[in-house]
């Protein structure tokens, strides 16, 4: 495409399942402790990565 460049693929739907594995770090255990930004976390599911 000449007018649009996709810089992040649409991965959210592919992660849908009945219940996430929840192995990722709880957000308040990291530096923030207050402002809850789940997006700063990484997925720690080895199969997914």
């Amino acid at each position: 495409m000449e007018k649009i460049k996709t810089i992040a693929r649409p991965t959210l739907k592919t992660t849908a399942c009945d219940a996430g594995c929840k192995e990722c770090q709880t957000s308040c255990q990291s530096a923030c402790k207050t402002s809850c930004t789940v997006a700063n976390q990484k997925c720690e599911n080895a199969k997914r990565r």
Partner: protein
Amino acid sequence: MIHKFKFKDIFLVLDINSGAVHVVDEEVFNLLDGLENSTAEKALQKFSLVKSTAAKEASQLVEQEMLFTDDSYITDKMKNNEDSVVKAMCLHIAHDCNMMCTYCFGEQGTFAGSKCLMSLEVGMKAIDYLIANSGSRRNLEIDFFGGEPLMNFEVVKKLVDYGREQEKLFNKKIRFTITTNGLLLDDEKTEYINQTMDNVILSIDGRPEVNDNMSIDGRPEVNDNMRKTVNGSPTYDVITKNYLNFVKKREGLYYVRGTFTRNNLDFAKDIEHLVNLGFSNVSVEPVVTDLKQPYALQETDRDKIFEEYDRLTDLYMEKMNKGEAFDFFHFNVDLEQGPCIVKRLSGCGAGTEYLAISPEGDIYPCHQFVGNKDFYIGNLFDMEIINKQRDKFLNASIYNKEDCRNCWAKFYCSGGCHANAINISGDINKPYKLGCDLEKKRLECAVGIYAKTME
């Protein structure tokens, strides 16, 4: 749902329900005006009336489910979090502190109770509880908090040893973190923390890692305004010396963690100060407090704070371009390998997967609620759990919050801080608006920076 914004000289479009992010030209950007909450069908109808390459390419993205995707793949089961697993604990190892920080949400370390250090017995009971209630979760987290945890360091060390024994018995992996104000961070504790709390060392392929949080607000005049010892003495000189000594020896992750208030709305200068001192990992966040405090952030401060995040972004990119990049926590966003949609729906996990334990063994939804009787859950030695508390937090997911349901940031933010919501509105399902605005601003900065690095 989409969100479009301009960052520096580039135009960005976020497709919220798919997670896709696009850099577009100005023609496409303008074509999307007024379509933020549009369905795919309505968007295609509009595009069909415009004979242009911009309309054609936008239509192609819609057909490929990368623009105007809907959220029909999110089921009711996903939205209704019924997971009863606990995987993270905040141990209030000390309800005592050798500092008297003005903005402390913990009543200068005692959380409205009496001074108390957690006993080894209570700490072990907490670890047993965590493991027993962790289900099939392998990665568990224990944070040593306070008050000042280094005031009870011998118990910290014994609990780490105990945790290491138990994780072997039950096939768990415990990630230890600790928060300190730095006054007691001597060489002995530095060495111990570096040896025992860095999970990167324990993991061959580099998975779990430990964060050390250190509290320092930046310039001396800002730091010493808010962060004094119990007898009112300044702390900057002592703690910067201790912290620089610590990070010099540190191989694992750490963050220098500050708080900005109304007293330093020019907080980008504090971040720059910390970076220039030599700290490569920085997290500085808005104060959490009630609005009556003189240092509380007010709605009228919004524009000033936004400008400051813009200055911070410029600083961040300038340093990056010079080869002197630093890590600012809220600019870290993994757009493709972040948490799954289920995690993003449930939010921070307070009161469900994350609990805080007081020195007496009382259980609370998180560190912000410790000492607040309205949110008492139970006690480790008397396991009658008040389920109403749990349900309140279980149900506080983004689809149950009116303000979150239609917010473009919902899957990045995941609903905000529950304590903030309750402090400000009294309602866990009504997020703190200024907090939301700042979160969205930070996200735009983070995504914009990411886009710039992809150029």
